[in-house]
C-alpha cells in the first residue's frame, strides 16, 4: 500500500481569498465585526471603485455581507463577514503559516 504524499499547502489556497486586498478586507471585517466602507478604503489605500469590485467578488463568493443604510442624511455602507468568510479567513491563515513553515524547513535542509 502506498502512503499518499501530504498535500502541498499551495494547492489548498483559495484564489478568492489568497489576494492581498481581499485578505485585508476579510481580516479587517473579522477584527472589527462590522466595518464601514470608508474605513476599509482608507486602511487599504484603494479607490472607491476598486474596493467595490473586490467587495463584489467576496460577496458573490458568500464571504461577506454588504449592508447599506443612512445615518442622518449620510449614506453608510457596512461590511461584515459571513460564517463562510470566517472559515475561509481562518483556513487561509493556517495555509499561509504552513507555507512559511514548509519554506523554512526546505531552506534549512
Amino acid at each position, binding site marked *: 500500500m502506498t502512503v499518499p504524499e501530504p498535500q502541498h499547502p499551495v494547492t489548498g489556497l483559495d*484564489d478568492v481569498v489568497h*489576494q492581498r*486586498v481581499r485578505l485585508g478586507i476579510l481580516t479587517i471585517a473579522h*477584527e472589527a*465585526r462590522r466595518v464601514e466602507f470608508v*474605513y476599509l478604503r482608507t*486602511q487599504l489605500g484603494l479607490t472607491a471603485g476598486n474596493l467595490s469590485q*473586490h467587495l463584489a467578488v467576496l460577496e458573490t463568493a458568500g464571504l461577506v455581507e454588504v449592508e447599506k443604510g443612512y445615518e442622518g442624511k449620510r449614506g453608510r455602507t457596512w461590511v461584515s463577514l459571513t460564517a463562510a468568510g470566517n472559515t475561509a479567513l481562518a483556513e487561509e491563515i493556517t495555509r*499561509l503559516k504552513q507555507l512559511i513553515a514548509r519554506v523554512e524547513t526546505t531552506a534549512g535542509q
Partner: protein
Amino acid sequence: MTSDTVPAAGDPRRLLAEVRGFAHRVRLTQRVTWLPLLVLALVTFGAIPAYMLGRPVTRDCYSVEGGEICKIWEPAADLYWLVALVVAYVVIARVYLRVARGRGVDARVLPYVLTGVAFSVVMFVLIGVGAGVWFVRDAEDLLHPSTSIEVLFRLLTPVGGIGIALLVLAWLERNVALLLFTLGYLAVILVPINFGWGVHWGGHLQGVTALIIVGGVLLLGSAGFGLAQRLRRAR
C-alpha cells in the same frame, strides 16, 4: 482591478505580517479606553455621599470567643453601587459603540459590560445575604482573617469588580497598557493605602479615603489613556 496573487516564496510572510498589521490597527481604532475609566471614576466618587449619609445596619449578631460577629448591610451604599454600576455599564456600552462606529468599526465591548453587570449583581446579593461566613471554615476566623481571605474580601467589593471587569476589557482589546493599568489598580485595592487620611473620621467613614484614592486612580487613568489616544490620532 488589481489582482496581486502571491507567487513568491517570501510573500506569505509579508501577507501574514500585513494581516497582523491590519488587525492591530483595527484594535487601536476600536479603543475608547478613557470612557469606562472616566464613568467608573465618577461612579466611585458618587459612592462617597452614599457612605456618608447612609448608616450601616447590623443583624444576626452572635458572640464568639474574642468578640462578636454580625452581618453588616449598608442599604444606601449597597443599593447605590448596584444601580450606579448597572447604569454605568449600560452607558459605557452605548457610548463605546457609538464612538467606535463613528470611526467606522464595531467594538467588542459586550463581554466586558456583561462581566461588570454580572459582578455588580452577584456582589449585591453576596453582601445582602451576609455571605462572608461562607468563605471561612469557622466564623471566628472573620475576627482575624488570613491574608488570602483578606485579599478575597477586598476583591469581592464593587471597586474590586471594576478591576476584574477591566481585565476582561484588556483581554478583549489585547490592550497591554490597560492590562498594566488594571494590575496597578488592583494592587491599590488589595494593598490599601490611606496616607493617614480619615483615621480620625471614625467608623465606616474611613472607607471614604479608599474611595477617593480609587476614584483618583481611575480618573488619572482616564486622563492618561485619553491623552495617549489623542496624541496617537494626531500623528
